[in-house]
Structure formats: C-alpha cells, structure tokens
C-alpha cells in the first residue's frame, strides 16, 4: 500500500522551502523503501506552520510542521515504522502510532484550532485537493454549482446571486447580483466577464492562494457569470508578481479546455465560454477596474471617468462584469448550496464569509475564512496569537495600503463594511497587517503618501502632485519643523486628495495618513488628544 503525502506547492510554502522538503521526502522514502505518492496540494493557509506536511491515515489527514529538510529522515522513519500502524492519532484510542510522538506532529489537520474555527465556503477545497485534478475537484463537490446554473435561466442565476447578499470582495463591497443584473439587461453584440486578480494590496494573498490551491473554482465561477449575463468570453487579469499562481491558472485553463468545461459546448450543454489569462506589468492602479480594462486593451493603466459604468460600456466598449477572484469564486457555492446557505452567516448587510488574511508581524499568519462580524481584536489576538516578535501590538492596518491604521483601542470593531466605515476605516480585500510597538507611525504615513506618488496613474493633480507634497510635509514633521503647522497642512492636503481624486488611490490614501495622525499623535511629535503627554502624568 502506498502512503499519500502532501507537500504544498503554494508560493508561501515554496518561499519557506517546500520544494526542498518534497525532494527530501522522495529521496528518503526511496532510501527507507517506503512506498509514497507525493501530492503537491495548495496551502491550508496556516502559514506559520509551512511547510506543512500532511499524511493520509485511516483516521484522516495528519499534519507535521513546519518541516525542514533536515527533519525529513526522522519523519519518514516514524511513518515507516510498522508497529501499531493504521491506528491513527493517539487520541482516537488504540495504540499510538510511532509518528504521534514526532516533535512536529500536529494531530489531525482538521482539528487544528485555527482551521477548525473557520467556515470554509470558498476555500473548502484549498489545500485539500490536488489543484490540477479535475477528478479531485468533482469528488469534492466541484461543478455542482455549474450544473445547477446550466439548468436555470439567466435571470434566475442572477436572482440567486442577489438573494445570497454577496458583495464584491475586491474592496468596494458592491452587491454582485445588482452588477450582473445591469450587464444582463445591457444591450451588446458581445459581453465579457473579467476577473480582477490584480491583488496588489499589501497584507492580502487570498486570490493568490486560491488560484494556486483551487484554480478550477474560479473557472467555474466565471462560467456561471457568463451564463448569467450572456457573455461567452472572459479574461483573468493577474499580476506579474504572481508567477506561480499564473502558471497554475494557465495549466488549469488547459485542463478545463481539454475536458470540455470551457469551449463551445460546456459539459455538453451547447453553451460556450472561453477564458484568456492576461498578466499585468507592475502597476498597482491597474487593480482599479477601469484602469484594468484599459490595460487589457493594451493602453496605459489610466483610470476612466465613470459613467459610463463598465457594466454598460466596459472592455472594448462592451457590457462587462468585472469582479474580484473571491466574488466569482463564491458563486459556485451559492448555486450549489442555495443562496440561503450563504446568507445564513454574516453580519448586518455583509453576508456570507470573508477570507481574512492575517499578515505581517503576527504569530499565526494565514488565511482565516469566517462569517462577517468577528471583531478585529478576536482576529488579531485570539486567532492570530498577537505579534510574531512577542512585543505588544501597536497598530494594525486593515484593507491594504489605502486602509486605516487602527490602535488596539478600536479592536472591538466588527469585521463588516459599514462598521469599519463608521470608524473611518475600510476592510478592503480583507488584509490585516499587524505592527508591534517598534513601528513609527509618522513613517507609515510617509510611506502611504510615497506609495501613492509611485503608483499614481497621473490623471488628477491632487493625487499626482499632492502625494509628493505629502511626503515632503511628513518629512518636515519627522524632522520636527513647525510640527503643528505642518500637521494642519497635512490634514488640509488629505482633504484635497479625498475630494479631488477620481479614484480611491488618491481618494483613500488619506485613510492611512489621517488615521496615523489621529490615533498616534505622539509619533508625530504632537500632544495626545487629552492635551497631556503621558510622561507628564
């Protein structure tokens, strides 16, 4: 009997040596004459444990991690030890298998609290299946949503998505069903479905992880979107910074074409849909939907004025659905399990699950898919385990480079679009970046302005020029020159950017800047809001 061993091929795992671990397992298994089938799965999203090696046992998959190549000989020896084989993990009763005493043994993967506490709708298969096996995909519930959609009229598909309450996961939280309805109703000799996979926000990696771990779900979601709005061609616009994801995605597209999932006769239904993968060229602003469309058309990635909405006049002038990877990947679940199952979890107007990404200086960094409504503090402290350095948390930036910095005093904020907006923040694409008490918040404000200056598309003056001025003003504050006057100037500048910018790059850069200035006044050499320095107390 051959033993199935899983070593992720996810970039996050590769970045910490997964390939070397896989090679060591193959070599060591051969040396110890253990018959092994090695599967390169996606990541489970428990990045502090990567490379996370899993082994199939009769009781379920068991995990070891983080595994270094030097751990492998001992690990393989433990797995090869035949004594009480087949008994599974010790807590399940029976004789303890020898591998259960291995120092990296984590027990049943599904029982690891970080994973067990999640609600995985979209990432249910990620890290579980072989990403490029259509059989695995089907065996784990894949294509059920598409089968359901093929039996429905376009209006009925759109209705289901609307009823689910799904809101765009790219940041703006716009209701997906309403967007689709507009495209369905729009006149056009052709229509397009575009996936926004330009995941540029620091602290986010959910799109990448899904494209690497379960690429077929995105393909299924896009086909359903095509059926819903009457489009027969789609594009995935990904980024050049994601070579592994792009490679997996390209292979998955080829597999889907060969299997007749894509093409002129989707699963024998007579309907057609094709998908092209396009790669950006290093421009953050191309994540903005209209800049992205310009980029696919072969132009500079400059933001278009709206209206017209892309839903009416989008790619090549045709009605276009443009959605984030996670929005489209949520759709197969909705069609397969019904909109009510999706809407059953969530908070207020934020329905379903959110793939929260815990990043930066955090002990348990990774992907945590959960219903909206969990508090920021629960995510950072309970689930994330506080900082990786063990120092106190000073600030967390939520929602990427355009998101606000929150101090622990705001940790009671529920993860929800409206709740964050009410506190001058945003959840964006769900990234949370944790900083310990060594961070200097004036420097973070400076970086926000600098990033805006580097990535501005150049169309509006407040964004293009204002951001460069912003860097200079923060520099003067850091140097301690006319701090009060310069802080006031910075606030003015932020107002100008907020109201004079065409898109959220210029318009939201004030969020990180002003939140730093408001919540961390001391870091700017200003008196705290109560007017007294703590030291003076």
């Amino acid at each position, binding site marked *: 009997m051959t033993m199935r061993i899983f070593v992720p091929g996810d*970039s*996050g795992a*590769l*970045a*910490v040596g997964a390939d070397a671990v896989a090679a060591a397992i193959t070599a060591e298994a051969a040396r110890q004459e253990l018959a092994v089938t090695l599967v390169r799965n996606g990541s489970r999203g428990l*990045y502090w444990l*990567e490379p996370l090696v899993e082994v199939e046992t009769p009781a379920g998959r068991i995990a070891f991690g983080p595994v270094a190549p030097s751990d492998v000989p001992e690990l393989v020896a433990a797995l090869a030890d035949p004594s009480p084989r087949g008994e599974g993990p010790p807590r399940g009763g029976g004789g303890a298998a020898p591998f259960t005493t291995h120092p990296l043994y984590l027990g049943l993967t599904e029982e690891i609290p970080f994973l067990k506490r999640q609600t995985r709708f979209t990432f249910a298969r990620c890290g579980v299946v072989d990403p490029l096996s259509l059989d695995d995909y089907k065996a784990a519930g894949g294509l059920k949503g598409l089968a359901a959609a093929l039996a429905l009229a376009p209006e009925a598909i759109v209705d289901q998505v609307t009823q689910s309450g799904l809101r765009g996961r790219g940041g703006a939280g716009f209701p997906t069903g309403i967007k689709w309805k507009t495209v369905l109703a729009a006149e056009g000799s052709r229509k397009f479905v575009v996936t926004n996979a330009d*995941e*540029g*926000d*620091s*602290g*986010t*990696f959910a*799109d*990448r*992880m899904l494209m690497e771990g379960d690429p077929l779900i995105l393909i299924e979601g896009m086909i359903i979107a095509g059926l819903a709005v009457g489009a027969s061609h789609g594009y995935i616009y990904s980024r*050049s*910074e*994601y*070579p*592994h*994801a792009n490679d997996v995605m390209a292979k998955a597209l080829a597999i889907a074409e060969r299997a007749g999932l894509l093409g002129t006769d989707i699963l024998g239904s007579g309907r057609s849909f094709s998908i092209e993968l*396009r*790669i*950006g*060229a*290093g*421009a953050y602003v191309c994540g903005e939907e209209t800049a992205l469309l310009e*980029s*696919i*058309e*072969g*132009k*500079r*990635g400059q933001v278009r004025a709206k209206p017209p909405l892309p839903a009416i006049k989008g790619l*090549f002038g045709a009605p276009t659905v443009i959605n984030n990877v996670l929005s489209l990947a949520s759709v197969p679940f909705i069609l397969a399990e019904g909109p009510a199952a999706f809407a059953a979890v969530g908070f207020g107007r934020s329905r379903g699950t959110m793939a929260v*990404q815990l*990043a*930066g*200086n*955090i002990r348990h*960094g*990774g992907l945590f898919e959960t219903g909206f409504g969990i508090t920021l503090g629960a995510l950072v402290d309970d689930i994330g385990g506080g900082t*990786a350095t063990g120092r106190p948390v000073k600030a967390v*930036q939520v929602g990427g*480079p355009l998101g606000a910095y929150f101090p622990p005093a705001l940790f009671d904020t529920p993860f929800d679009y409206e709740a964050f907006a009410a506190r001058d923040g945003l959840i964006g694409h769900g*990234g949370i*970046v*944790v*900083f*310990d008490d060594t*961070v200097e918040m004036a420097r973070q404000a400076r*970086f926000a302005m600098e*990033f805006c*200056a580097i*990535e*501005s598309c*150049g169309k509006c003056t407040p964004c293009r020029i204002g951001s*460069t001025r912003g860097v200079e003003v923060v520099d003067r504050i850091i140097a301690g020159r006319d701090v009060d006057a310069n802080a006031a100037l910075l606030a003015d500048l932020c107002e100008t950017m907020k109201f004079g910018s065409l898109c959220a790059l210029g318009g939201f850069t004030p969020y990180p800047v002003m939140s730093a200035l408001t919540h961390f006044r001391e870091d700017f050499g200003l008196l705290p809001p109560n007017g007294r320095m703590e030291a003076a107390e």
Partner: protein
Amino acid sequence: MSQSRHGDDRTAVEPKDLSGAQRDELSAIIARFETVEGATLPILHAIQSAFGFIPPAAAPIVAEKLNRSRAEIHGVVTFYHDFRSQPAGRHVLKLCRAEACQSMGAERVARLVEAGLGVTMGETTADGRVTLEPVYCLGLCAVAPAAMVDGRVVGRLDEAKAGALIAEVAP
C-alpha cells in the same frame, strides 16, 4: 523618487538598431499575437522575455504592426514598472518594500542587501551581475519579509538568509 512613472525620462537611452536576426525574432513574436485582441501587453512581455528588455528600436515596429502611434507604445512601455528600456543584470533580486514586510523588518534587510551588493534600490551592480529592485507585495505577507530572485520566491528573510541571497547572486 526615481520610481515614479512621472518625469522618468527613459527616452534618454540611445536607440540602438536591431540586427537582422533580432528583427526576425521581433516579427515572429508579433505574428504570434495576430489574432489576439488588445495584444500590446502580451507582445511587450514576450519581447522582454526574449530580449531581456524592450529595445527602444522595437517600439516603432510594434507601433506599426499594431496600427498605433510610436508615442502611444512609448507611453505604454514607460507606464508599467516592469518594462525595461535597458537590459537588467544577470540576476534580478526584488525585495518587497510594502507594509506587511515592513512590519517584519524589511527595511533593515533592504539596507543590508544594498550594502552587501554596493548598490541602491533600482540599480545594477557595476559588473552587471545583479539588478536590485523594489517590489510592492508578492502575496507572501504571512511569511514576511519576502523577496524574489529570478522568479524564485523567498520568505521569512532574516540576516542569514539575506546574506545567503547576496552570496548566491554576487559570489
């Protein structure tokens, strides 16, 4: 800020003529995308992967084939951070400078690498071995700080790993 896409004057590079073989290669690349709608970026990516950069002399040829003006193609090439108008070093080392990596000491790593290679961000070593570039997020934010060396990803960078990277690209 030399990285900004405004006021960066890459036309200063002397346009060198392409050899006959290079012209043929260029034509073949463009022909491959004949049926592709909006082929400009795919073509530019293919040119850069074949030549290592976008030779200034290639832009007018691409423009003609795509029925666009030279200025438009030049505008596209200069807009995107990825496209180079000069060849890079033999190795390209990209260090992530974005927030999640900052929170784990990316700035210290960057200074270390700059000192080790004797260049600053955006420069190529005098011997042409290494180009050091900033990148803003590699999606490895949970294993920060992160880097990419010739397409290979590296996470949890610390002093030792940064040293090993330097030794690898500039032995």
